[in-house]
């Protein structure tokens, strides 16, 4: 008997959870108010597809704008802070500490500044996602192997060439890891801020339906957010695979014998 692959096991567990989701409320093990059956949730989602679609568009717009801010500003500030020693020593400890602050407590201030529309969500989620992007960019630049830079200089690289051809490619893996985390935090930031104070978006649908105890519609919104996160993850993975061929390429081991010129064997 062959052992099932982890992938197969994962799918089996996923399928089992879906079955449980349907069976537990149907069998009366949990009231439908707590967990509405999967089919009922999906039915509501289909019925209200125009509402959910419109809400998703709002959320997507906010996420996209916030990611642009988080990634753009994060990479820029991270590059400067990581590259300039004095700035690094001055700012990095501060940024690292700020990262630990639950920024969500600042959200009321954001609504005061930007109102309860999309702007406050974008600003809040942008700040939320900024920190991991900025910190990993700084780390990526700071941890570049000195030898890479020395070699490039010995080959006559100018500063712009050094940046474009060595520093940027060398820091891509760390920056991508930060983008992945920052992107996920941006989605969280948008949804959470929508749940707190707003009149549109998926997060708003969760809160609104929660207050009227319409559980299937709450869960339908949750499914949409889950789908959003999964799609984001798939996109990031695809980008990583494309960019990091040199890291993920099959670790074929080259045999030195294959290259050693035959005449050496006679020496």
């Amino acid at each position, binding site marked *: 008997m062959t052992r099932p692959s982890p992938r197969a096991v994962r799918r089996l567990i996923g399928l089992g959870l879906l079955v449980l989701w349907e069976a537990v409320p149907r069998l009366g093990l949990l009231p439908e108010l707590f967990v509405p059956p999967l089919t009922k949730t999906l039915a509501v989602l289909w019925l209200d597809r125009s509402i959910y679609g419109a809400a998703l568009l709002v959320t997507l717009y906010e996420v996209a704008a916030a990611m642009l801010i988080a990634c753009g500003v994060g990479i820029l500030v991270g590059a400067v802070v990581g590259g300039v020693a004095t700035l690094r020593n001055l700012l990095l400890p501060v940024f690292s500490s700020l990262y630990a602050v639950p920024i969500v407590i600042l959200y009321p201030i954001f609504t005061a500044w930007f109102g309860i529309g999309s702007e406050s969500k974008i600003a809040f989620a942008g700040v939320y996602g900024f920190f991991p992007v900025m910190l990993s960019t700084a780390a990526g630049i700071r941890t570049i192997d000195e030898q*890479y830079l020395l070699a490039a200089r010995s080959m006559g690289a100018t500063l712009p060439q050094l940046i474009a051809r060595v520093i940027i*490619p060398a820091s891509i893996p760390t920056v991508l890891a930060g983008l992945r985390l920052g992107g996920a935090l941006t989605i969280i930031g948008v949804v959470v801020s929508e749940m707190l104070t707003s009149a549109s978006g998926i997060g708003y649908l969760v809160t609104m339906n929660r207050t009227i105890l319409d559980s299937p519609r709450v869960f339908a919104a949750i499914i949409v957010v889950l789908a959003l996160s999964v799609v984001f993850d798939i996109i990031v993975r695809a980008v990583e695979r494309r960019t990091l061929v040199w890291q993920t390429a099959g670790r074929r081991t*080259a045999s030195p014998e294959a290259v050693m010129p035959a005449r050496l064997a006679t020496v």
Partner: protein
Amino acid sequence: MQHMAQLSLGQEQSQGAAVEVRGLGHIYAGRDGAVPALTDIDLNVPAGRFVVIVGPSGCGKTSLLMMLAGLRTQTSGTILVDGRSIATPDPSRVGVVFQEASLYPWLTAVENVEFPLVLKNAPRDERRARAEAMLNLVGLSGFGGRYPHELSGGMKQRVSIARGLVQDPPVLLMDEPFAALDEQTRMTMGHELLRIWSQTSKTVVFITHSLTEAVYLADEVIVMSARPGRILDRVPIDLPRPRTYQMMATDVFGALRERIWHQIRDVP
């Protein structure tokens, strides 16, 4: 015979010198004030010569190499490479091969080799052809598409040598290029380097910790001392070329090795 002729050239001879160092000194600002790192370094390497520098850690041999490469500036004295001073790196005059594989992991072998040509905006076809020719020279034809992590340690250093030679500089500087390799690969690489050297007639300045490697490779071994770094001895190695592994077992080889070892050991 050619080597014997070169050996007879005196220290004063400067015509045809590929590398010429006069009264070089270097002082760096340490924690306890100024520390002399190098003093009174005079070095004259005629074109086509293979010179090996040995010395204890901290004798400044790597600093000296960095200065020859234009990567660091000396406090005093002059350095002429190919007859001109070298204030900034010039890969068309000096190629450098570093200890650790300083290849870029995001580039394939051939892309690594052509990197210096990319920096000079050479046409794509031209630089690719040149890089392929260099890979061929170091015995790696057919491996151009591999990424560094797909190559063995010895193969990576072959790529580094190919990269150092791609602009056809008259001088090749090597900073302990085989130190990270296992003994067997190291011997093979030494032999390969001599083959490449004899095919390209470059001037080589090579740093190592291995006295066997030094005697095996060199026309002349420069022995340095630490704190401050200065030249203790210049040992001509008049073993015939091509060198063979059998020579290592000879008395002459052993005596040369012993002479160098005594000087390094006697330094406190």
